């Protein structure tokens, strides 16, 4: 599959799993004839029929609750939230019921909740949020965010096959801004495994989602200054790939924790906690966090630009850390 966009990678990943396994179905608002707000389910209702591609009423909590019930009774639901921000409307069903079924009564919930997340599209406070943390923080849930088309396809397939509830966060800015050649084989990308996106020796940038690309851009520029950056793309946020996180931390000894999400309570803190506890002796400088400031996501371009972590900021902080 030559030059596959991120959105197309997810779409074909779902498609293949639906072909492979009759118990997989898609449910959400406008996923049928409309093909979803971002067209991830385009063409599916025509191919698989209304039985397996189900338009719902405007009811996020019922969608999640029903998905969970269907999973209990033997199906493998893929739920689409129109925007990740509105998952908040199903928060109780996700965190209090779906997440706890296995622990409470040994009941597997093989369910994927897909949600377009993230900013840089002038979506403003309600259509740009990065919502991973409440789910990362809920035992029983897995949380995934791909940065590339390859991972998007491999991770959605692995998530669908997983027997735990997976929150699958799609970065909406990446939908159509990244592409790559994909193998024609039936590949998956295992959950819980990060990936070195660039090998380096001076500083590690640990990140995920859109910020992987920002980190790679910064790394390119820093290479010109003779600073060698390693970029670790987490891919799965829960469970975290602690081993690889500690490996890169011990390797470079200087770490930048980068995310698009706001700073306080963001994943950067968790990563800092892991590293400052388990790789403390290897550190040659402060753990530097780069994240959005603690505000809602602003709408207007100059504000959003100031809000989102930028390549410049990464370059500057990396230079500072390099000299530390």
């Amino acid at each position, binding site marked *: 599959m030559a030059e596959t966009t991120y959105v197309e990678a997810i779409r074909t990943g779902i498609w293949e799993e639906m072909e492979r396994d009759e118990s997989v179905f898609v449910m959400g608002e406008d996923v049928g004839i409309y093909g979803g707000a971002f067209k991830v389910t385009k063409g599916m209702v025509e191919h698989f029929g209304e039985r397996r591609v189900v338009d719902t*009423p405007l*009811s996020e909590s019922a969608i999640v*609750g*029903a998905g969970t019930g269907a999973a209990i009774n*033997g199906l493998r639901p893929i739920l689409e939230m129109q925007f990740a921000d509105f998952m908040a409307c199903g928060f109780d069903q996700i965190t209090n019921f779906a997440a706890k079924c*296995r622990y409470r*009564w040994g009941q597997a919930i093989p369910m994927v909740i897909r949600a377009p997340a993230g900013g840089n599209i002038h979506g403003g406070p309600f259509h740009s949020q990065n919502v991973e943390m409440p789910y990362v923080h809920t035992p029983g849930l897995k949380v995934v965010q791909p940065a590339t088309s390859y991972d998007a396809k491999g991770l959605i397939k692995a998530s669908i096959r997983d027997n735990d509830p997976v929150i699958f966060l799609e970065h909406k800015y990446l939908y159509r801004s990244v592409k790559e050649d994909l193998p024609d084989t039936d590949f998956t990308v295992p959950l819980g495994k990060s990936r070195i996106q660039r090998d380096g020796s001076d500083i590690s940038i640990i990140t995920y989602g859109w910020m992987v690309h920002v980190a790679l851009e910064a790394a390119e520029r820093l290479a010109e200054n003779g600073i060698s950056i390693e970029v670790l793309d987490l891919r799965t946020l829960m469970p975290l790939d602690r081993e690889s996180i500690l490996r890169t931390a011990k390797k470079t000894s200087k770490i930048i924790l980068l995310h698009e999400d706001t700073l306080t309570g963001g994943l950067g803190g968790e990563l800092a906690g892991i590293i400052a506890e388990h790789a403390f002796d290897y550190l040659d400088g402060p753990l530097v966090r780069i994240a959005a400031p603690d505000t809602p996501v602003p709408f207007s371009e100059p504000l959003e630009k100031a809000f989102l972590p930028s390549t410049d900021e990464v370059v500057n902080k990396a230079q500072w850390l390099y000299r530390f």
Partner: protein
Amino acid sequence: MSAPAVAELRLAVDRELCESCLYYMLLMRELEERIELKLYRQGKIQGGCYTGRGQEAIPVGSALHSRPGDWLTPSHRDMAALLIRGIEPREILAQYMGRATGLTHGRDGNMHMGCARRHCVPIISSIGASIPVAGGLAFAMQYRGEDNVVFNYTGDGASSRGDWHEGLNMAAVMNLPIVYLCNNNLYAYSTPLDKQMKIHDIADRVSAYGIPSEIVDGNDVLAIYGASERAVAHVRSGNGPYFIECKTFRMSGHSAHDPADYVPEELRAQWLRKDPILSLQKRMVEEFGADEQVFVDTRKKVLEEIDEAVNWALAQPYPDPATVEDNVYESI
């Protein structure tokens, strides 16, 4: 006494049906009393203590219609539904005592119990949340073309929750096979119905979804049995959901620590006279001259079962603290 096969039961004042109902109602009543009035006070129960005293007719009259492929989502006042599904008193007692062999292996709190194998979803504590979940269970039945149904149980208070609305609406739109049993016991904790809603009957609320409903005397197990039979017939034949409002009363506080002072004395007295177990017994005497001795024997039988179950449960081990982190994920 073992439960007669459901298929053999017919609606009518059928002796065998009455005996079966009486058995399960008594078993629930006595088991809950043992838990609340004895074991709880002895400090053998962990956590708070909720019972369905006075509401036994609802789970019994309905769940007797369930088939193995059906699913149930009981509320915290429906212990008899679990018993009818074959969950044993000793498993329930071990659950309440937080033992390793309880239904949730000590993971969840006493009445938050259920069992995947017997198709009972453990009570979902967030009131109302079971309604969308029932929808999904039913969706899977429809998806596979089965004629199984879901029995969903909630209270009056649940009808104020957003999930209740979203779930009923979705079930109606998708024509899902669900029998809803609503126990309208006039209170949600201390909140009386008139602070919960401006209308009088929850059944009236259901017409907002295009779901057929009926109102029954929630203390009359035979009435519930009859309504459930109609409901199940409707639902199993693919006609979509059906809602039964059971007018009843919580003969206890919200839980063991609640003296329910907020309930007017006359109201309580009036309802105590309608105890569903006594009502059934009276009916049995009237309709086919049932012998008082049968009641005494049934009760004795039930108490013996419970004694045995209590002894078993008390001898059960507590969960091993080393297992505390198990079973959060399949694999990680």
